[in-house]
């Protein structure tokens, strides 16, 4: 039986593997990858045990806190937390990561930095697991930043490619903007409550006593303190989870190796933001008791989620890069999760997070399999016809696609999306998010159909696609396992048997008959069918013949298509505003330094020199002048006297004699006696 106090083992195992990987020489490929996979398998087993322990008493929050260091009269304390939410996340992350690790064995086989890759992967997994098991927002933030740096290393793994290096930097900096908000939220919360522990025997920030106190504090602007703190923390979540307007890093991050995309964009890093909000959901919901508040944190979350869901789906329609389509679909799906959180259904969000982790990892790994087979050709216009040559990949990819599109009843995505639609329709603040999700459902089905048709149907449109053949077992088996998960997972949370929901909340949730919300479900089925049908009509019935043939939609609306293809010009917009502003401030700072402060000091120096000159003139003229004149007189006199010293001995003697005579005469004649 595992307890909260042992929970640190789960992140510690991959961390150890990362350490081993870092210290082995380059040739130690088997050691590094073996350690990483063994550690991940161990972490998975521990997570299963933890889940078992958590499910034994789903309403309890088991925690183990410890002191990190003493500070003032108090101490900075950290801790580990075990409850069903953590445990489910742990199991999901370790399981999906394990499969991705195994897949990487095949995918990265030829890379020179193979062992480094596994080192970074393990570091990443360790950091992500740290986020999950933390019972302290500080520990969570520490792990959170480590996730950021590990993703930086992984996205920029092919660092010799300038695009990859730039993408890694962009990802780190964009998420760091959010993280700074998170940091401020953290210090504010710390200042307001004196603790960052989530659960601490009544003193934790998620416990009712502390939250009740917090909710009574209102800022001068009328904003409640918990609202402000929640929004700051949400900045961090938005950065990591690629929410509008911080989503720009996510598509670029596709420059990393595909297993990295699967890990980062499906199961872990982007899910961290959603997990964070779900984790501190009581804090976000604390301001709901203030009916008069000008703004509720969750309203903002829902709005951002809805915008992101719609935005991602629309942009995904017009992407030609296999991985970019998936990336924007991730953005869109994360929007769904945020929306679910915003409308109050954090359970729905987590349900979707879990199912999404499986089918999106499946899709990315499937894409990886395609890319691997097609010699790193990612442009869907140049692929095609792969269904024959890559049967396993095709079948599993189709499963993932249908799960993502929400094909009814069999696939997990249907059930989790259904839960979100249900929650959104019942939200009483506004119906706009609900409409956004409905549009998103159509678009998701549409662009996934387009993707599937372009890649797998028709004839190969490039030599690389023509010569593609199925990937090795080490890559297809993880695909198959994930495909099973992408189907099976949905049945854990159907309305008829809401097992997952009741375990997550710790309270039994009554089962609803399937047809109770039948209208909504019917609507969603119709919308999915509409999207699939439209996709089939445009891309399936008449398959693309050449790589250069224009897209049917592009032919219809070229300008809109180009606008969407350019990702709604967000990157250009940021480049024109934020980046330029940044460069301006930097130039200003440099200018201030060189010109203004430097000149001020230079002026002082000149002034000092000037004073010195004046001073020395005065000294030379007045003081030294008199002294010099006197000295000169003395010298002149001396010179005159020295002229008497002729050096001629006879002259001296003569003088002596004359003086003697004169003296004698003086004595004799003058009568001196």
């Amino acid at each position, binding site marked *: 039986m595992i307890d909260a106090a042992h929970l640190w083992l789960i992140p510690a195992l991959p961390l150890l593997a990362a350490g081993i990987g*870092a210290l082995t020489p380059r040739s130690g490929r088997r050691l590094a990858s073996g350690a990483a996979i063994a550690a991940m398998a161990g972490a998975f087993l521990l997570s299963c045990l933890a889940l078992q322990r958590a499910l034994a008493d789903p309403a309890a929050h088991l925690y183990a806190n410890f002191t*990190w*260091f*003493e*500070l*003032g*009269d*108090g101490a900075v304390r950290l801790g580990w937390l075990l409850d069903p939410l953590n445990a489910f996340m742990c199991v999901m992350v370790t399981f999906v990561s394990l499969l991705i690790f195994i897949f990487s064995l095949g995918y990265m086989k030829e890379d020179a930095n193979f062992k480094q890759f596994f080192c970074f992967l393990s570091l990443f997994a360790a950091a992500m697991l740290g986020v999950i098991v933390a019972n302290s927002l*500080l520990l969570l*933030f*520490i*792990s959170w*930043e*480590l996730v950021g*740096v590990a993703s930086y290393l992984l996205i*920029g793994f092919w*660092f*010799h*490619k*300038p695009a*990859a*290096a*730039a993408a*890694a*930097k962009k990802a*780190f*900096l964009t998420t*760091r*903007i959010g993280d*700074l908000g998170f*940091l*401020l939220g*953290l*210090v*504010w919360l*710390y*200042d307001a409550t*004196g603790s960052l522990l989530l659960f601490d025997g009544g003193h934790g920030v998620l416990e009712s006593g502390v939250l009740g106190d917090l909710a009574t504090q209102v800022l001068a602007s009328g904003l409640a303190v918990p609202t402000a703190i929640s929004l700051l923390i949400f900045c961090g979540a938005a950065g990591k989870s690629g929410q509008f307007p911080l989503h720009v890093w996510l598509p670029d991050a596709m420059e990393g190796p595909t297993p990295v995309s699967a890990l980062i964009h499906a199961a872990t890093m982007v899910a961290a933001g959603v997990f964070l909000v779900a984790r501190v959901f009581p804090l976000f919901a604390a301001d709901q008791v203030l009916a008069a508040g000008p703004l509720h944190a969750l309203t903002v979350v829902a709005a951002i989620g809805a915008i992101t869901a719609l935005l991602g789906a629309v942009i995904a329609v017009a992407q030609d890069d296999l991985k970019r389509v998936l990336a924007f679909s991730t953005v869109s799906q994360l929007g769904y999760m945020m929306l679910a959180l915003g409308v109050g259904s954090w359970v729905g969000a987590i349900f979707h997070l879990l199912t999404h982790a499986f089918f999106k990892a499946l899709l990315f790994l499937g894409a990886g399999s395609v890319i691997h087979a097609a010699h790193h050709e990612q442009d869907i216009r140049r692929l095609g016809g792969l269904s024959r040559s890559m049967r396993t990949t095709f079948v599993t990819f189709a499963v993932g696609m249908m799960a993502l599109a929400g094909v009814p009843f069999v696939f997990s995505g249907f059930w989790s999306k259904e839960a979100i639609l249900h929650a959104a329709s019942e939200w009483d603040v506004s119906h706009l998010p609900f409409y956004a999700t409905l549009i998103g459902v159509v678009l998701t089905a549409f662009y996934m159909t387009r993707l599937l048709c372009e890649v797998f149907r028709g004839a190969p449109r490039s030599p690389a696609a023509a010569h593609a053949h199925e990937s090795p077992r080490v890559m297809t088996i993880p695909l198959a396992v994930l495909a099973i998960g992408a189907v099976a997972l949905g049945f854990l949370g159907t309305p008829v048997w809401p097992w997952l929901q009741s375990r997550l909340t710790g309270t039994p949730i009554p089962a609803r008959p399937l047809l109770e919300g039948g209208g909504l479900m019917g609507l969603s089925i119709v919308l999915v069918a509409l999207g699939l049908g439209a996709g089939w009509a445009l891309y399936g019935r008449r398959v693309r013949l050449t790589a250069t043939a224009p897209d049917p939609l592009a032919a219809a609306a070229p300008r809109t298509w180009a606008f969407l293809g350019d990702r709604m010009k967000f990157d250009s917009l940021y480049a024109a505003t934020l980046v330029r502003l*940044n*460069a301006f*401030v*930097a*130039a*200003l*700072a*440099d200018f*201030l*330094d060189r010109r*203004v*402060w*430097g000149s*001020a*000091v230079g002026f002082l*120096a000149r002034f000092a020199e000037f004073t010195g000159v004046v001073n020395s003139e005065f000294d030379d003229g007045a003081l030294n002048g008199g002294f010099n004149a006197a000295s000169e007189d003395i010298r002149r006199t001396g010179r005159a006297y020295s002229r008497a010293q002729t050096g001629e001995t006879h002259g001296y003697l003569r003088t002596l004699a004359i003086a003697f005579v004169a003296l004698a005469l003086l004595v004799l004649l003058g009568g001196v006696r």
Partner: protein
Amino acid sequence: MNALPLLSLIIFVPWAGAVLLACLPRLGAPASRALALGFSLSTLALTLAALGSFDPATTGYQFVERHDWIRALHVHYHLGLDGLSLLLVLLTGLLSPLCLLASWRTVAEARFFGLLFLLLQGAALGVFLALDFFHWFIFWELSLIPAYFLIRLWGGPGAARAGYQFVIYTIGGSAFLLLGFAAIFAATGSLDFVELSSLGATGALGGKLASLGGIWPQAVFLGVFLGFAVKVPLFPFHTWLPATYAEAPTGVSMFLTGVMSKMGVYGFIRVLWPLFPGPLHAAAGPLLWFALGGVVLGAFAAMRQTDLKRMIAYSSVNHLSYCLLALFAVSVATGSSRPASEAAAAALSGTLLQVFNHGISAAALFYCAGVLESRAGGRRGLNDFGGVRSAAPVFAGLCGIALFASLGLPGLNGFVGEFLIFRGVWGLAPWAAAVACLGLFATAWFLLTFWQRVFHGPRAGAAAGPFADLSGLDFAVLVPLVALMFLLGVLPHLLTGLFNPLITSWANHLVLP
């Protein structure tokens, strides 16, 4: 009273080494390097000995040595060690041997270099241990002379000008400091920091200075403030710094940023703050803006630099400004009605941690810049390199760790200090913490730009040809620093344990006289 004058030994053993080197003019380069390193290591050994019997729970000075020196002026030879000094002496002891190692191969005239370096080391230690202004000031000024010659004789092409600027600027600041203390002596008849602090705590110091004339209390405060502000340096008194750090030889840059810039922060905490709690409180509001200027503009100015050493120098401005930001925030909140001792404890602990951690990370970064410079034959522009990570992966790894430590990545040393500073400053002056976030962001930006340009992409510039990875000597310098980064990042209580009671007693007595 300790039987063994441990603190005197700490200060004077390096000087004894310098004298010994001076007396052996025919000593060869290897022997003199070894001798200098040995004497330099003595500080670490003696500090560890002091650490063994140091009692962190005592908030007063320990190992005190106090002897009459000049009776007519009431000058005592007075040394003492508390958590703050111990931290800085430890830092000096750790960094000095590494700085010498960093100059191991590259420096001609090793004997003279070692001699000057030991002089500098002893003087810096004297500053951290002296408790009487008289010899404290002697140490303070004496540190400049070897530093000047080290920069001037072994520095880059602009070293003559940079060294001159450095010395004149700093002496300019010190002149005000000296004048200020002359006035203090005239008013109180004492130069002992301990006596003066107790006078300052009760407000008697201000009263006595006022007896000299109306404007004196403010003038003296300003003078003392200027002396320290130039040394740290506080924005906008920092213009000497980039040129000096960039032109100095690598080992000296490491020492300048690692230890000498800490002398200013130490002066702020040890002298200015206890002696003038009232005037500092009054001035702290505007001063916060100066510190913020250093945090934000320092980081942004670094973004524009193309010289790597200048860039790291600006990042030092940024990092040290966090320390002053925290101190000023504490001062702003001093005497306010809101109980803020918890936030103040966090801010002050953060400051001390930052002082130590910045010493380690900045020294490592300067060393990395030095490695690049030596491999590239003296070039160290941002655009002179590319793809170094392909050429020298181990170096890239260690440099990357130093870089992430510098931008405050959790798990490495920089984070804890910065987090505590933000936590404290938020509790004391929230808007300042919010503005300072910009500095954090800009720091990440320019450090990553540095990393991307130099290490990533295809091999280019100086890294296009053969580019050696780290040698054993490089490992000897970088590995201890990187190990410390990890150690202190994970176990910050190794440091906080030394000074937490001291900080607590400070934070609990935040009252205006």
